[in-house]
């Protein structure tokens, strides 16, 4: 069943456009994984959602699909009866921002006192790198209603907010999975939500049409590793919530970096020898990782093209 969700997420992610439209999610459940203290991971259809709860309200990272939003709201209600205040989008793909509109409308931002709701309507604040805002607002198809736009965008390297008693650092990862990826570090809880720059269930999707690159993806892996302090060895301590797949720790991200590095270096060496993309694919430079991550052709193509 999990594999079906994963494939569904992958297919929709593959469309590379803000596919905000609905699928049929009648049979999909939202499951809650307690991560640490007031941080939870929601698993449903599309990207994992990170939830932070507290007296000031709820903050979530990513919103899956619009068709999942009733179930997501029900899961949030199980965790807290406080209002949804913030949505952070890790990037613009439909399986991560598809639920922005219904979830933002169900929320309420901290501003304006008693009058604001009557003047402008009220929604949760949506935060993302400005590239996400640009891509969402310039999409020719399925243009998202402005209520879901990440109007609290940032364009420098990072944006910090302090919410529910902890500092939350949102850090841009240039040219990685897309050109607008953010990783979100909950500094007191010691948890990082990283979106699709890291996943455990498949090879990475490098969205070359949206500025993604193999080197940016490796740099993003390194930024995650740099923030992690394990308890001992490579376990525990800072935990990582991936875009897709399971809750992770340092060892998992190191394996990911190892896989990306080996394949990058092999493809680079083959490219340096003058091999064409088809020759590289035929040489199977990822065959030691294929039984783990699946079909590699799309990934190898993106590596080859962005080196």
């Amino acid at each position, binding site marked *: 069943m*999990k594999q079906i969700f994963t494939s569904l997420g992958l297919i929709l992610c593959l469309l590379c456009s803000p596919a905000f439209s609905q699928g049929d999610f009648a049979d999909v459940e939202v*499951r809650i*994984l307690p991560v640490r203290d007031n941080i939870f*991971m929601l*698993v449903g259809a599309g990207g*994992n959602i990170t939830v932070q709860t507290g007296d000031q309200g709820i903050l979530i990272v990513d919103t899956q699909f619009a068709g999942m939003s009733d179930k997501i709201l029900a899961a949030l209600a199980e965790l807290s009866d406080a209002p949804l205040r913030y949505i952070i989008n890790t990037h613009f793909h439909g399986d991560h921002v598809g639920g922005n509109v219904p979830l933002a409308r169900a929320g309420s931002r901290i501003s304006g006192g008693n009058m604001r709701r009557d003047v402008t309507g009220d929604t949760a604040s949506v935060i993302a790198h400005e590239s996400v805002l640009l891509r969402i607002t310039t999409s020719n198809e399925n243009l998202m209603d402005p209520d879901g736009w990440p109007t609290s965008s940032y364009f420098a390297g990072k944006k910090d907010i302090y919410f529910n008693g902890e500092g939350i650092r949102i850090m841009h990862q240039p040219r990685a999975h897309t050109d607008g990826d953010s990783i979100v570090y909950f500094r007191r809880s010691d948890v990082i939500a990283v979106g699709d720059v890291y996943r*455990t269930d498949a090879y990475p999707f490098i969205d070359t049409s949206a500025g993604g690159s193999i080197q940016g993806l*490796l*740099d993003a*892996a*390194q930024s995650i*590793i*740099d923030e992690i302090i*394990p308890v*001992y*060895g*490579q*376990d*525990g301590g800072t*935990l990582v919530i991936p875009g897709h*797949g*399971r*809750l*992770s*720790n*340092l*060892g*998992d991200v*190191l*394996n990911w*970096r*190892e896989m990306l*590095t*080996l394949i990058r*270096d*092999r493809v680079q*060496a083959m490219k340096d020898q003058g091999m064409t993309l088809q020759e590289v694919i035929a040489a199977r*430079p990822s*065959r*030691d*990782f*294929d*039984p*783990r991550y699946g079909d590699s052709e799309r990934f190898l193509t993106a590596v080859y093209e962005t080196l």
Partner: protein
Amino acid sequence: MYKLASCIVFLCSALTSASAMAQANLSGIWLANYTEDLADRRPGPALGDYGGLPLNEANLLRARSWNASLLGLPEYQCRVHPSDYANSHNNIRIWEERNPDTLELIAIHTQHFTWQTHRVIWMDGRDHPPPYAEHTSMGFSTGEWVGHQLKIKTTHLKEGWLRRNGVARSDQATVTEYFIRHGDSLNWTVIVNDPVYLEEPFIRNRDYFYSTDTQPVTYPCESVVEIVHEPGYVPHYLMGNNPDLFEFADTYDIPYEATLGGAHTMYPEYRAIARELPRPSEMQD
């Protein structure tokens, strides 16, 4: 009436000790019984020695790309041995956790003398976590008694290794173990099922003996920068560029092909096949 009551007490205690006798008491410190496999268990396996391991094509490439300098990186220095590698070497301490009132067995704990890794084997019938929960070096273990034997099922292992020379064990593996006590000796069998990196299950069986006077030891580890590298440096060998792959075969004059492993190299009949293969000493000049 008094007689009846004491009969019941006697019957209960007889039943209790009878059922307890079906389970072993594994508590104590058990010392690794190094014999002919000492060289493999203490210094560890040679580079390029994969013979007798059921590794598949993917794992062979993984192993041949592995560079031991990886272990010099700060983020790898304190990397502990996964629970399914622990019986490869060194001693363990075992203790029980029981409900203080009912004395029901909740869990059996182990601590490996290398890396001081603490592992919990849940005996209270709980379920394994969902697949999207964290995976760790120790994994998530549940145990049951099969007669006198403790049978353990482990899931949620993150990627580890079958040997310390680059042979990988994937995070999709499940492990079955048996702890079997015979008086003062303990047999610990590990069976690794890995759909990603193995052609057949890998089985490692080790012996321990009971110690009456060994004390547990700590194993602290702090990483340090030993060599300054560019951020993101991951040492490895490109295909065909590893200079260390022939050293083992050359040193012991073993046919190179036999060092490549694969399920067929595990079985006794492979000896006859290997004998027919050319040895390095026959291939010179």
